[in-house]
């Protein structure tokens, strides 16, 4: 791919690339200019910093107010409100945001590795715990999923499927 065309396309797309995909910032082809890479990295870093700032603000509010909820939930509400009010633009966060969400599961992996320390609990009560957790999760998924879908598909309630 033409290097100049790539650079121009990147510059034009900038942080407002509609795809919201990291790949949009990654220059294609072997001869991609270093500047295009740097620009991509800079954009992503800025967007990450923005998301991080919303998270920090959420955590701060929760600590100050002594609320028993996670700060990042407040961060979600704050970012949503800022988008709705037009204080920030979707394009400012979209590339980094969609990348993080696509790989959200990754961030839980190091946490679940902590289960390796719970061997003795599962050795003594394992069967009961697993059965309890699995059956109650199954029933919960069934209730939430079937009840909501039944109501969603009943035009009397909502105007039908979206």
């Amino acid at each position, binding site marked *: 791919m033409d290097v100049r065309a790539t650079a121009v396309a990147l510059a034009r797309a900038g942080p407002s690339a509609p795809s919201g995909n990291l790949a949009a910032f990654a220059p294609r082809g072997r001869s991609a200019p270093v500047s295009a890479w740097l620009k991509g990295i800079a954009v992503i870093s800025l967007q990450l910093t923005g998301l991080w700032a919303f998270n920090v603000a959420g955590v701060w509010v929760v600590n100050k107010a002594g609320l028993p909820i996670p700060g990042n939930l407040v961060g*979600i509400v704050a*970012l949503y409100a800022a988008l709705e009010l037009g204080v920030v633009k979707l394009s400012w966060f979209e590339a980094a945001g969609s990348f993080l969400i696509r790989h959200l599961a990754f961030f839980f992996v190091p946490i679940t590795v902590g289960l390796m320390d719970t061997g003795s609990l599962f050795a003594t009560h394992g069967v009961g715990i697993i059965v309890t957790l699995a059956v109650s999760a199954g029933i919960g998924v069934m209730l939430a999923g079937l009840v909501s879908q039944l109501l969603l598909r009943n035009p009397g309630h909502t105007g039908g499927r979206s």
Partner: protein
Amino acid sequence: MTGSSTVAITGFGIAVTIGAYALSLLARRRYPSPLTTPVLFSTVIIIAILLAAGISFSDYKPAKGIMTFLLGPATVALAIPLYKNRQAFFLNLIPAGIGLLAGSLGTMITAGLIARLFRFGPELVSSIAIKSTTVPIAVEIAKIVHGNPTLTAVFVVTTGMIGASFGPWLMDRLGITHPVSRGLALGTIAHGQGTAQAASEGELSGAVAGVAMGLGAVCTSLAAPWVIPHLVQ
């Protein structure tokens, strides 16, 4: 442990985690099954490798700290799909709300009742009943309902893994296909891990799951002090 070996183990922990996650993405694409969902698949591989290498979880903790640094910003980013899908979301608010209530109360009550069938004591029953709430909230509720916060955290993480891996499989069999319902069920029951799974199914599902995780937690924290005493006695 010396400083340089801490660095080496941390680097090893990060490399193993990223490698296992990348492998899980390949495995899921080739053999889609509850067993190849990223959290379950990667966790099993990583624990096996750490055990084989003689690395304990406390050795792995610095690596965990580095890798989970972006979890907060990543969760905040859920506002983006929510904003983009806000019309579909608000149109479906009432059915979703009723489903959320049914799911979070249903799972709490059934967990408590089944735990009693296994003759678990009051502390274990209380701790297990609130397992569908995201960790930071579950730990707070555990204190209120005389549960054990540490046990609760273990149950929350295990539930997330079970729900995120087998939830979509179960919903396929039950004919739950609406993206709002799938996201709602995953977020309500399997909190963050379910939300991650829902986000991989689609933007609307992920957004609904993120909100359901939050509202489900609020719902559980309001209901638990009333419901759990009846389950325990």
